[in-house]
C-alpha cells in the first residue's frame, strides 16, 4: 500500500492549467485506425516542469508591448516577448507569449501576476511548452483568436462583439433598407 502523500495543504497556483494538460492528453490518445508511426513527442509534463515561457491571454487589443513588459518584469527579467497577432491584419489580437530566463521566474509569474489586471482586464497566465514560429498568429476563422469568433458579449477591448455574431447581424441587413 502506497503511503498517503500530500505536497501542500492548499492548492498550488504554479501548475499548468487543465487546458494545457488537456491538449496533451488529446495528443497522446492512441488512434486505432492509423497506428502512430511518429516518434513519441517528449512528455509534456516534463517539458512544462522546466518551462520558461508563459501564454498570456485576455489582453486588450490595445495593450502595448511596453505595458506588458512593465508588468511582467516584476517577476524577473524578460528574455523575449512575442505579441499574438491577427493572421491577416498583423495587429495585436489579445494574447502574447512571455519568456523568462528561468523556470522559477515563470512560476512566480503564475503565482503573483496570473489573475491580476493589466490595462484593467484580468489576464490569464498559463505555462507553455515554448514559443515556435507560427504560434503568434490567431487561429480563428477571421484571423484573430477563436474565442473572439463566437463571443456574444460586447467587449470594447477586443473588437466589440464576436466576429461571427457581427456577421450574422450584417447578413440580410439589405432587406431592412427602405423600411
Amino acid at each position, binding site marked *: *500500500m502506497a*503511503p*498517503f*502523500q*500530500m*505536497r*501542500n*495543504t*492548499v*492548492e*498550488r*497556483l*504554479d501548475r499548468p*492549467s*487543465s487546458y494545457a*494538460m*488537456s491538449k496533451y*492528453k488529446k495528443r497522446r490518445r492512441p488512434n486505432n485506425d492509423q497506428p502512430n508511426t511518429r516518434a513519441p513527442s517528449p512528455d509534456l509534463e516534463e517539458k512544462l516542469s522546466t518551462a520558461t515561457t508563459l501564454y498570456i491571454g485576455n489582453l486588450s487589443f490595445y495593450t*502595448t*508591448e*511596453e*505595458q506588458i*513588459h*512593465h*508588468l511582467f518584469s*516584476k*517577476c*524577473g*527579467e524578460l528574455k523575449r*516577448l*512575442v*505579441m499574438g497577432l491577427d493572421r491577416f491584419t498583423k495587429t495585436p489580437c489579445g494574447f502574447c507569449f512571455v519568456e523568462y530566463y528561468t523556470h522559477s521566474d515563470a512560476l*512566480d509569474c503564475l*503565482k*503573483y*501576476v496570473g489573475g*491580476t*489586471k*493589466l*490595462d*484593467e482586464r484580468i489576464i490569464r497566465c498559463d505555462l507553455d511548452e515554448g514559443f515556435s514560429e507560427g504560434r503568434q498568429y490567431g487561429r480563428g476563422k477571421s484571423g484573430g483568436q477563436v474565442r473572439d469568433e463566437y463571443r456574444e458579449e460586447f467587449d470594447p477591448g477586443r473588437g466589440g462583439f464576436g466576429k461571427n455574431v457581427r456577421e450574422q447581424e450584417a447578413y440580410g441587413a439589405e432587406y431592412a433598407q427602405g423600411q
Partner: protein
Amino acid sequence: MADTDSRRDYGGGGGGRGGGYRNDRRSGGFNKRKRGREDDDFDQGYPNHRPRGDAPPGTRIRKGLLEIAEDPLRLPHEVAQNLAKLTADNYEDEYVKDIFATVALKLIVEQPFKIPFVAAVVLYANAENAEVARDAIAKTVPRLQEYLEAGQWREFKLVLRFLACLSPLYEEDAISPILDQLFDRAVDLQTASQDDTLGLELIKVILLTVPYLLAANNDETLRQTVSDLLSRTDIVASTQSPIEPLVDPYPDNNAQDEKAMPCASTISMLQRQLQEEEANGWPLKCIPRVYDPTLKPVKANGDGDLEIEANGNGETKTPTKHTFPGIIVPATVNTGPRALFPDLYFSLYADQEVESVPPTTNIASCIVRDAIVDTINILDFNRNATARFLNEIDCYWAPDTFVKRSTAFDKLRDIQAAGKPTWKPEDVAIDAIFSQVFQLPTPEHRLVYYHSLITESCKISPGAVAPSLGRAIRFLFRSVDTMDMELGYRFMDWFAHHLSNFEFRWKWAEWIPELTLSDLTPKKAFILGTLEKEIQLSFAKRVRDTLPEDYHPLIPTSKENEVPKFKYDDENTPYAKEGREVLTMLKKKAPEADVQTVLDIVRDQALAHGIEDPLVPIMDIYMTSILSIGSKSLSHVLSTIDRCKDRLLAVGPQSEAARRQIITSVMNFWADHPGTAVNLVDKLLNYTIVTPMSVIQWALQDHMDRGRALANLRTYELVFLTMFKVTNRVRQVVRERNNMTLPYSQRQQIDEALPREREGMRDLFAAIEDAVTGVAAGAQDEMVERFEGGEAEEELVKRWGVRWTRVWKRKNAVEEAVVGEGFIGELVEGELELDVVGQEEEAAVGEEYGDMDQVA
C-alpha cells in the same frame, strides 16, 4: 485540495465503491469542454464521488484537520474533540495513522495559525487512545532535529511551537531544556561576534516559544524555569545590534525629524512584553486555549482523576504521559539557507490614538504578527488561500481578541471607551503584509507577491480592507520624507500597481496642496513618480482622466504621443539633412558602407565646427535613427538594435563620450516616456553596448544637475537596475563557484574570474557613493555658488544625497556579506560541505558591516 482529492481512500469502513456511474459527474453527457478546471484532476481516476456523508474516516480526518478552526460557527474545542474521537476510534487502521501524521505535520509547517488547534486534537485524543499522542510525538521530534540541523529556523520554530503546545503530555519538562541549549548557542555566537545575527534569530525562536509553552502548561515549576531563562535572555534581547540601524525603515537622517515609528527590534519588544506578562501572572490573553481538560467528555462514572485507580481492567481514559525522545543541539549551529538580518517591528497603525492593532507593549503584537508573516511567506504559492486566511484571522486567536470583522474605524473610539477589544482584524492583517513590503534589505518573496496579496484581500472584503489601505497610504505619504529612500520607491511601485488593479481610483484631491511644493520634496517627487508608473502600466490619457484638473499640467499632452518626433526632421537641428539620410538608409537596410559615407560627412562637418569628438554627433544620428525606426514597439527597436549592433558595439572602445551619447540619445528620444528609455538602457546593457560604469557616470556625473537628478525616479531606476544586474551576476558567479555538481577544474576557473567581477562591482559602488556623498555634503561641483533656488533648495538636494548614500551603503554592505572574500570561504574540492559558520578567517576587507551574515 487538488493534490489529494483524487486519491482513493483505502481505509476501512464506508460503503463499497461500486456506485459506478451513478455518482460519476462525467456521465451526465454534457459538453466536456465546459467542465470546470478542477474536474480534470479526476480524469485518470476511478469514480470516487462518494456522497459526502459516509466518507471513510481517513478522508474525514484529513478534511477535518485541514479545515480546523476555519468555521467561526463551530466551537473550536468541540471540533477538536470530535476529530480526536474519530482518530482515536479508528487508529488501528494504518491508513488513518498515516493520514493523521502526514496532514498534522504539514499543517504545522504550512499553516501556523492552526498549530494550537492541531495540538488540541492530539491532547484530546490522548485521553481516548494514548497511541495517537505517542505517535505524534515520535514522528514530530525527528523533524525538529532535521530542521535544526539544516538551519531551517522558521520550520524549526513552528515544530517546536507544536511540541510546546503538547507539553502537558510529557513525563517531565522537555521544552525548556531545548530553549536553554539554544540560548547557550546564541550566547556563544554573540560573544564571538557583535555583528552576529544567527544568535539573535535563536533568541527570537526562544522568546516566541515561551508564550505557547506557558499557555499550554501552567505548571508552577515550569513558570519558574521560564522566568530564569528570561532573566538571562534580557542582556542579548535588549541590546541593540550594530546592524539594526542599517535595516531601519525610518533611519535617523536628521535629528530634528520626528520618527514616524520607532521600529524597535522584535526581540527587544518580546523581551519586555514577556516580562510584563510574567509580572501579571502570564495571562497570555490572545493565545487560544483549545484544550481544556475539564471539558473532556464525561463518562458514566464521572470524576476523571479517580479513574486510574477505578479502572483496573485496562480501559483507562485518563491522559497518559509520554517520554520525550529529546534532541541534540549541535555545538555549531547552521545559519541555514537564507541570509539573516535583525527583525524590526514595522507597523503603520500601532501606538496611535485609536488602538486598531495591538500596541507594541502588548505581547499580542509580536505573537500575532509572527504567525501572520509566517503564513504569508510560507503560502506564497496560493495568494487566494493566503488572503482568505488573513481575512479570517479572528478565528485563530482567543475569542474577543478582535473586534467584529468590517467594523468601521470611526466606531472604534466608542468601542474603546466601552472598554471592549478594538483591534481590527483587517488592520492587523494589512499591517503584517506591509511589514513585508517594507522589509529591509529584501523580503522573502518578490514584492509583486505582496502586491497581489493586498489585491486579493481587497477583493475578498473591499468594504473592510479599502479604508484600512486608505489609512495606510496616508500614513506612508505623510512620512515619506523620513522613510528610507528605497522603501519610498517600493511604496510608489506598490501604490501605482495597486491602483492599476482598481481603476486608478484614489482621492487625489486631498494631495492638491502638495502640488505647489518643489519637485525636490519627497512628497511631490512621490506624486510625480506614481503618475509616471501609472502611465507605464496604462497610458497617459487614461491616467489623466482619473485625476482632478489641478494635476493635469503634470501629464502634458506630449506624453500622449506614442511615437516621438525625429529631431532631424527639424531643419534647425545640426546635421538635419544627414540625420534624415541615415534614417532612410537604415529603413531601407542599406549597406553599412553607404551609411558610413554619410557619417563621414558628419565627421568632417563636426571637425570643421571645432567639435573635439566627432563620434558624439555621429552616434547621436545613428542611435536616434534606430530609435525612430523602432518607435513602434519594443520588438521593433530590439530587432533594429540587433541589426545595427556591430557599429554600436564598436564605438564604446573608441570613445567613452560617444558611448554615453548612446544613452543620451535614448533618454532624449523617449523623454516623455522615461520608463521606456530606462528599459532600453537595460537592453543595451545586455548587449554590452553600454557598460554599467557608463550608465552610472551618465546618471550621477554627466546628468546630476547639481544634485537635483537624485530626486528623479528615472535616475533611481537607471542606477537601481544597473546595480541589480551587476550584483546579481556576481552572486551567480559565487553560486556556480560553490556548485558541487560542477567539475573542480571548472569551479577553479570560475574562482579565478570571481575577483575581477567583484572588483568591478566594488568600483561601481564606490562611484555611486562618491557621487552621492558629494551631494550630501554639498560639495557637488558648482553646487555651492550656483544655487539659484536658495538655501531651501540646497537643503532639499543635500537630503536626497543623504538618502542615496544610506541606501547604497546598505546595498554595498549586503552584497559584501554575500559575496565578499571573508564569507564565501576557500574553494573546497570534492563533496566536503563548506563549514559556513566556522569560517571566521579575516573579516571582509575594511567593511564596517562585514560580519553581517555568513552565506556560502
